[in-house]
């Protein structure tokens, strides 16, 4: 039984790390701008595709990763530009970002087909923890994800720019009146969030494989996690991404792989019925 418990903790933690990166960006955008960015999954896959294609063409792997992150950042800026005229209309924002996501997915499908491509893991091999094999790439991804999330949290809570982000998220008009350039804050948040998603995509492509369809999967996970954590709560998203990781692994262990995503989504719905604002959300 201890073996099983350890397995759930280890796998749940490493699974949660990557989704935490995707969800935190999604949450950050909503928290600051009240924008539900449905193109968030597109940043996840685009960064991975760019990094894979460049590294596969012989470019330095780290430069390829940087290029992937740059593309995801540009995509974030594109989302900012496209949503700016319709920002006050939530439905239009959803339509615009969803249309962008579908457009990017179709472009990827036409050019690369729907089969996965993957990236050679930067670190290979595995370690054994009490007869449980954990790949080094999973561990590296977890460490990098946690480092990114902690840095993000510190940036938001401790720095001057973080205070501007918090101020904008609390009341953008009041923030503007105090001299904060709200538009610059929004650009920063969009770009940064997309880079986080892109970084998660690049890590994901090293452990698994990426295909155009993965963008939808990333979006669904991010959306589910953010709602569970409480829309707009960065820490809530981080905690709930690990909860989702544990639910997934628990289900695979006790009920079978076929039920994994179903149970995860069912658990989220159940939690929301009991606590409609999510685990860390507050009523507005």
């Amino acid at each position: 039984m201890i073996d099983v418990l350890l397995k759930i903790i280890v796998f749940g933690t490493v699974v949660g790390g990557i989704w935490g990166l995707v969800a935190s960006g999604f949450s950050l955008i909503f928290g600051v701008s009240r924008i539900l960015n449905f193109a968030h999954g597109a940043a996840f896959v685009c960064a991975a595709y760019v990094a894979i294609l460049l590294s596969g063409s012989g470019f330095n792997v780290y430069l390829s990763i940087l290029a992937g992150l740059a593309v995801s950042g540009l995509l974030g800026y594109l989302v900012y530009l496209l949503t700016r005229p319709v920002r006050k209309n939530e439905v239009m924002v959803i339509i615009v970002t969803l249309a962008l996501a579908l457009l990017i997915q179709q472009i990827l499908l036409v050019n690369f087909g729907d089969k996965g491509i993957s990236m050679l893991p930067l670190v290979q091999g595995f370690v054994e923890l009490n007869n449980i094999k954990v790949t080094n790439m999973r561990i590296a991804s977890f460490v990098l994800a946690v480092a990114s999330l902690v840095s993000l949290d510190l940036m938001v809570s401790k720095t001057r720019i973080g205070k501007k982000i918090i101020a904008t998220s609390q009341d953008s008009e009041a923030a503007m009146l105090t001299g904060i350039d709200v538009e610059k804050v929004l650009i920063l948040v969009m770009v940064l969030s997309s880079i986080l998603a892109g970084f998660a995509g690049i890590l994901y492509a090293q452990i698994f494989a990426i295909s155009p369809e993965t963008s939808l999967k990333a979006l669904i996970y991010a959306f589910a996690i953010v709602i569970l954590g409480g829309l707009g709560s960065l820490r809530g998203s981080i905690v709930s991404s690990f909860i989702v990781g544990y639910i997934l692994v628990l289900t695979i262990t006790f009920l079978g792989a076929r039920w994994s995503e179903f149970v995860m989504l069912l658990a989220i719905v159940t939690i929301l019925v009991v606590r409609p604002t999510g685990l860390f959300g507050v009523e507005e």
Partner: protein
Amino acid sequence: MRYAKAVLTLLILLAAVTSLCVQGGQKAERGKVVIGVIGPMSSPEGMAEEKAVKLAVEEINAQGGILGYPVEVVVGDTKLDSNTASTEFRRLATIENADVVIGGFSSGVMLTMMETMAETKTLFLADASSPAHAKKVAENYDRYKYWFRVTQNNGSTFALDLADMVKFLKDSGYDVKKVYIIRDEHVWTDPVVEALIPLLEEQGVEIVKDVRVPRGYSEYEQLIQEADSLDADLIMPILAIVGTGDILTKQWVTLKPNILLAGHDLAAIDAELYNKTNGMANYEVFLADGGALITAPPTEKCKEFVEAYKKKYGHYPESHQAYGAYDAVYLYKTVVEMAAKDGEDDPFNPDVLVNYLEKFDASNPIMLTRPIAFYKNHDLMWGDNYVRNWISQWQDGKQYIIYPESVANGELKLPPWIE
């Protein structure tokens, strides 16, 4: 009331006469042969079908077409969705006036398309693996006789191939006592496993767990380790629809368990898998679904076809569906010419062509990229002398057939980490 009845009768008669005129008109107006190709056109299966059909048609047109008529290709995209598939099939059959439709991957959408095929009485040289399709032909021949499975054997023969694979591994010195199955959560795998269980029991092999995974599933590391903890000797994928067989292979190579990965994994048939996984596809044993591999073409025509494909598109076929689609065009041309030679009034009539396609039976296969013959229920004939899913393996970036000996161009090579 009597007046209304008379008008109604007149209208019906008018409609019938008009319909006959239109049919007659079409026949008289034939200036070309139209071949429809249908499939999920964003997937390698659909793309390969479209490209292969276009290649065959280009070759045929260069030689004067079919009975002197130029051949035109029209394309339908199912998007792997039943409703879209049915609508697209109907468009090809009724608006584009396709004389024959080729393709149709996969089993789920095929069932819907068969209904549209029956309504429109369109010849359908099809690609899907569920035995349910041929069963329909057997149970209601008049309605479904236009359907022939051309691309691969039906799903129930996968069980024969997989049982042979286990036997081959045992005969080659890799003892298999316990098998851990990972399969698609999809209709096509049920009859495969159902048929496989007694075949493995005959060999004294136990299935320690049968895990079903949904489309897009990626957490294989846990499953691999579970197989290890259950002392399985073999992880047997039966994966096509899930679309993540490459991830299973990658994670198997990363974790290096003392278990061989051998089964039916559609991802492994992709000639580009080795590159797509950065060389991590090595040692996977798989079934060459569709009966052909680029590295071991079973016929001369197959050899010519893969090279012509590479020349035209810059790469080898991205999925085995290419062989079936290419064969289907030549098969259609052959039966039309046979019908014309026999003096049939309309050698393009699907009802006539069904009879000619049925002539290719066990004793009379047609040698295309694979030897094609049909059972009475229009299923593709399985066997060493017809089409079967050769047992193959990835070895250092190349796919080899390792069984049966008659076609093998390589031997089983165990991964270095297997004791």
